[in-house]
């Protein structure tokens, strides 16, 4: 009898058994068969437990920062600054979030490095940069640390030379990873720093 059980156990091990709540959602809400992406936690759950997207308490969307002219302030940056971090949210229909910062006078040969970390399950976010009053341009620089997305997060980076003055950096969706327009939202963390070249 034990041999029969052992044989059955041996054979049964050939079918992957993935319990709900064990994996984060993959790109475009990818989940194992029979599971669905919970958009609140970005974890693969039983479909009945999957909830619609919500920004949550840690990623509060600030209204009115959708254009460079109405950007939030990150403050003044020294020539070599600390890292300014913000957590926010990009609900469905949000065109982008913009942040303003000022590089101190007298800074030469400095550059701004920024990264936005967002869930890989939903729409992809990229960074834009412009001097105040100019039209922001998307700058998608390869990140210094190569991340695989295995931890459920994707990163977009920006690295550009800057001079003294006021700049606007934007977090915008790039139009990919939208689950055929079913997951055009995301939560993100932004980090911005000015450093020497």
């Amino acid at each position, binding site marked *: 009898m034990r041999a029969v059980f052992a044989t059955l156990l041996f054979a049964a091990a050939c079918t*992957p058994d993935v319990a709900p709540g064990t994996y984060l959602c993959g790109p475009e809400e*990818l989940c194992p068969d029979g599971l669905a992406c919970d958009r609140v936690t970005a974890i693969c759950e039983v479909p009945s437990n999957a909830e619609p997207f919500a920004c949550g308490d840690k990623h509060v969307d600030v209204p009115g920062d959708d254009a460079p002219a109405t950007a939030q302030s990150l403050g003044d940056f020294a020539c070599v600054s600390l890292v300014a971090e913000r957590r926010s949210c990009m609900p469905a229909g949000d065109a982008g979030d913009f942040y303003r910062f000022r590089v101190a006078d007298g800074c030469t040969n400095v550059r701004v490095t920024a990264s936005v970390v967002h869930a890989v399950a939903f729409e992809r976010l990229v960074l834009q940069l412009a001097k105040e009053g100019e039209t922001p341009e998307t700058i998608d620089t390869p990140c210094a640390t190569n991340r695989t997305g295995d931890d459920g997060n994707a990163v977009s980076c920006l690295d550009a030379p800057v001079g003294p003055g006021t700049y606007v950096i934007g977090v915008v969706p790039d139009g990919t990873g939208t689950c055929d327009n079913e997951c055009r939202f995301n939560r993100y963390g932004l980090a911005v720093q000015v450093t020497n070249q």
Partner: protein
Amino acid sequence: MEAPAAAPAAAPAAAPAAAPAAMVEKAAEPPALEPARDPVPVRTREIRIDVPGERSLNNKLVVGGVFAAGLIASTLGVYWHLDSRDASNAVGADEFTGKAWTEDQIALVDRADRSKTRAIVAYSLGGALVIGAVAAYIFTEPKTETAVIRTGVVVAPTSDGGGMVTKLWSF
């Protein structure tokens, strides 16, 4: 009266004296040859020996080939079974992994399913071949033949007055 009485007494006395002489003459002659008698078997016995049949080379090759093919198929089944189990264990989880479900995991699931299917086919084929080989080995076993050996001892007199003992086997 006395003479007649003496005569009968003399006649019986002469007769015993003449008889030994005749026997001596007869003993001097060679004895007449008696015709040889038919041999008389004293006792006969049958020995039965089972002679096992021998498989032909062709039979051995066919049965052995089928059995070997079954073993190979079963071995492949084990290989795919283990491969399927490895892939399944790599992706299976019952607690939070902290990893995202990506194409890598999907590829592992596909590999587990593919190897599982192959293992089932290989096990089925291998099992059928092994069972078929065993069945063929049993059903094509050559029949055992029974050989009977008859033995006997014959005692026969010889023409010269002696005897002869003969042991016989026949089969």
